[in-house]
Structures are given as C-alpha cells and as structure tokens.
C-alpha cells in the first residue's frame, strides 16, 4: 500500500546568517529580513550571527531549509547549491558548516531535510554597517531567486 501524500505545503526555514556589523557579512541577515517582510505562512525566518548546534532542532522541524550566507570569493551575484550532510571537525568552536549541521540533525534526530545553500557574493567585510553597493545589487537578485523558489515550493505537497 502506498503511503498517503500530505496535502499540506512543506514547512520551510530560512537561516540567513552573518554579522551586519561587518558590512557585506550581513548579506544573510539582510536576505532574511527581506523574506520575513513577505510574511508567508509556513515559512520561518531566523537571522543568527553564526550557526550553532542547537539549530539542528529547528532544522529537523522543517521540510526544506534555505541557508543564506555571504561569500568572499566565488560566483557573482550568487551561487545556489544543494547541500549534503558532511562530517567535519574544527579547531575552534566559532565555525559550524551548514553541511555539518545537517549531519548533526540526521544523527541527533534521524532526519536531515532537503537543504540548499545560497552564497551571495560580498566585497567589503570591514568593521562598519551597511552593505556595499555591489553587494546590494547581488542581494536584490538573490532575494528574487529565493522568493521564487520558496513560493514555488509552497504549492508543492509534502
């Protein structure tokens, strides 16, 4: 007997992380703020400075995860890629890779949902507030893509 398909839309979580006090490092929280303004039902948005292990709890409570972070190198205006769980060990506690977070979610709670990482290219990371002009342009394009992908999934049965 086939399993019944839920008609509820998938629960989505956007984790836009980074530090707005370091210029373009605030791209993740800026994207989070823009998506939060859309006030979509079934879409949770958080904007921590850094990822941490207890985020695994939130992750397992959702069906689709959108990680949004700034990049200092790589494609412009952004790069979107599917994430797979990965095991790592760091030398300090100030870094947690989103792929490692997925691995923790799987191990702690037996579930790692579908996850995507959107790396938005930034340019200025000094101690100051406000995105650079080029980063703002990249943000606009990134948010447009996010909004499209999130809204498209809202109509997708789980």
């Amino acid at each position, binding site marked *: 007997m086939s399993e019944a398909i839920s008609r509820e839309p998938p629960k989505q979580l956007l984790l836009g992380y980074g530090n707005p006090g370091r210029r373009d490092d605030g791209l993740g929280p800026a994207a989070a703020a823009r998506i939060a303004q859309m006030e979509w039902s079934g879409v949770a948005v958080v904007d921590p400075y850094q990822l941490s292990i207890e985020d695994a709890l939130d992750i397992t409570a959702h069906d689709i995860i959108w990680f949004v972070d700034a990049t200092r190198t790589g494609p412009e205006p952004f790069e979107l890629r599917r994430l797979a769980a990965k095991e790592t060990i760091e030398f300090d506690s*100030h870094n947690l890779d989103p792929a490692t977070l997925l691995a923790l979610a799987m191990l702690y709670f037996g579930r790692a949902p579908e996850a995507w990482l959107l790396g938005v290219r930034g340019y200025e990371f000094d101690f100051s507030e406000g995105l650079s002009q080029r980063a703002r342009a990249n943000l606009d394009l990134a948010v447009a893509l996010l909004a499209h992908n999130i809204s498209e999934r809202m109509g997708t049965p789980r």
Partner: protein
Amino acid sequence: MSVVETKQVPRKIVIDPVTRVEGHGKVTIRLNDAGDVEDARFHVVEFRGFERFIQGRPYWEVPVIIQRLCGICPVSHHLAAAKAMDQIAGVDAITPTAEKLRRLMHYGQLLQSNALHIFHLSSPDLLFGFSAPVERRNIVAVLERYPEIGKWAIFIRKFGQEVIKATGGKKIHPTSAIPGGVNQNLDIESRDSLRKDVDQILSWCMQALERLKEAISEREAQHRDFAYFESSYMSLVRADGVMDLYDGVLRAIDSNGQIIFDGVAPSSYQDQLIEEVRSWTYMKFPHIRSLGREHGWYRVGPLAQINCAASIDTPLAEAERRIFMASGAGRPVHSTLAYHWARLICLIHSAEKIREFLFDDDLQGTDLLVNGTTRRGVGISCIEAPRGTLIHHYEVDGNDQVTRANLIVSTTSNNEALNRAVRSVARDYLSGHDITEALLNHVEVAIRAYDPCLSCATHALGQMPLVVTVEDAQGAVLAQRTKQ
C-alpha cells in the same frame, strides 16, 4: 581533507592583513640552522578594528553594539560593556534584582558556551584519544558510540540559550543590560519553565564530568604531558578569594601558586598589566607589568579560573575542584588538556548557580534601574568569559560619545600560551620538514584546549582551514599543509 604543498622554491611568507585577522588559522614553525624547532607561532585575531567601530557611538548603545564582536559569547561582551557603562552613568551599585538578573544571564552564557566547547569541539579528542584516525575523531563518530553526548550537547546548550532569552529578551544577542541596571526582570512563566529542567541539566553536566574523568584515566600520561608547560594564571575572584565569574577583583598567581597580585580592582588593571606590541602580529601581548615581557605572560580561562580560586561557593563544583586541585599535588594544575577538566567544573558551577537564582525571589523584583548623579568619563570592567578574563575600557566625552575603547579579550591574554603549546607540539611531533597528519592533528588538539576566538563577528561562507607552515632559519617556506 588535507592539502599538502611542498615548496621547491624558497620564498618569504607575506601575511595579508585580512587573512591574518580572519579566514583561516595560521601556524608558523620556524627551524634553526640545525633543523630543530626554534619557534612556533599561532597567529590570532586582533580587535583594533572593532574598537574603532564603536568610537563615536553614544555610550548607552555600546552594550548592544559590542555583541557584534562575537556570535559565540556575545553575552560576555554585553555584560562587560554594561558594567563599564554603569560607571559612565555614575552608578556605583545596581539593584539586587538587576545584579542577579545579569548574573543569571551570565551563567546561562557560560553554560551554553562551555557545553558547545566540551561536547561539540573537544569530545572527539578526549573520548577517542587524538592518535585515533581523523575520520573517526569527529562529533558524528562520538554520537554513534556515545549517543547520550549528543543529547547533552544540544539540550544543555539549548537550556543555556533559554536562560539568556528569559533574562535578556533574546536568545543570541540580549538587550536587557543597560547602564544603571536592566530593563526587565525574570517573569514567573519563564522561571517555572527553567525550574522544571535545571536538575536534569545539572545531572547531565555531572555525568559528562564522570565520562571525562574515565577518559583521562584511560590515557593519564598523555593527558598530563601533552603540550605541557608551566605558567602564571589570572582570573577574577571574589574579594575573599572564592570563585566569582561575574564580578570581583583580579588575582594572579605564579606557577607555584604564590600570589603575584590580588585584590586588584578592575579599574586598576593598567597598574598590573601592560600590553606589548610585536612586529609580526597586529595582536598585543598583555603581560604582568612587575614581571616584565619575558616572564610576565599568563594564562586565562577555565584552568586559571579553577587554579586561582580559593574555593567555589556551590557544593558539587567545589567537591570536583578539590579532586582537580589534588591532581596538582599542592601546586596549580598546568596540563594543557586540563583546560577541559576545568571547563567541566565551571560548567557544573554554572548549572548550580542557575538553579540558585531560579529559586531566588529577588529576580521577580521591580527595582530594575538606578539613575546616576554624576556622569563620568571613564568606565572599566572585567568579567570571566567562557574563555577567560575579559576587560572592557571606555572613555566617553561630554557629548556622551565613546572616544576610546580598549578591549583585552581572553584569546589575547592566552596568545603566548597558544604559541608555547604549538611550540611544544612541534618539538615533539615534527620530523624533518614534513608536516604529517599526526603533527597537524596534534597542533589542532593543542589549539582546541584554548578555543581561540579567531573568527569572531564574521562568518563568510566556508569552513575555516588551519594552515601550518614550516620555515627555515631565514624564513623561507619549506613545507605548508592546509587542513580544510
């Protein structure tokens, strides 16, 4: 994955000002003409940029803004800044409710940060031994073999975050500590919710310590001797010498446990400490003024917090402190890996203090704020952050704007110790010019004991690699290896 790169053509290293601040950890091992390890340095973050960032800000904004320094221990900066700004606001003593609320928030921070370090960062090394293959030494392998540790890690940390949220208004970056007090008390609903869980949290902390002690007994010599060196220590203590991680006076002891200075008010820190600049790093090297630059360096953090305290005012942590100190046979405990043992005792102490405050009715008081009478131009505070003594020093002008800030963070104080730990590992494990997997692993283990704050306040995409370089006596690169 590690990338091995052996340089055929000698060249000098150019340290880019950005990458030395953040982006990756950098270790340089310098050999002498005989090919032996002459020196080793761990290049760590500096905070001058952030100090400039807050210049010109109104002083009352600083306790919130300063948290952008670190996503892991923002509460320590929040509270240190608030304590300094109390002085700027002309407040000598805040109300009991405000003081206890801040303390509760602080112990929530210590709990969650120390838990993150112990369970997530260090448990693979401690439980498997750091000679174990690297593919087995990670948190996932730990959780496969010790699934309860995953539960402790997540839920102790989450509990600490809930304490911060209940006292600070927000889980990550609280806003409640303001010059002269706090802007909220602990509501009954939050208190009761936390009361339900606190005994379980304390029990897990105790179980974690027992598990660590078992691991130590299995590899006692390795635990004792790895990256061993003796040092002085500095920590805040209460005026009577009892452990106090929130407020008090500065105490420094030498490697034999003799007092170097004691009872020093945080506002007089410059009478005892001086910050030295060295040519190869932006970072300053604080040292004890009376002992000079060669002998005045010291360690801070959990090992210092335990070594410096005459006792602890919570029973479970005090019992464990006595066992810990007995391992030093009347002298301070100096082992690098003893940081982890000490950190767990501090974790237990934090859980006990949280429980104490959750049953203190003062936290539901409404006397939250004191208005100062005379504005002052200087505010200086100390707090024991999870990684050690944190000093905030501000000067504010007549327009209420910050004109100067000086922060001595714990990683700065541990700078010399980190170098010595890496040097010790290099001397023991470097063979020829090859940067072996074993050397890389052991360097990481030594660094992890101190958990330096390298990437504070920024988190551009990607992991932080550790780059280890071996140079000859002239500074030419002989080998370089990157652990991704």
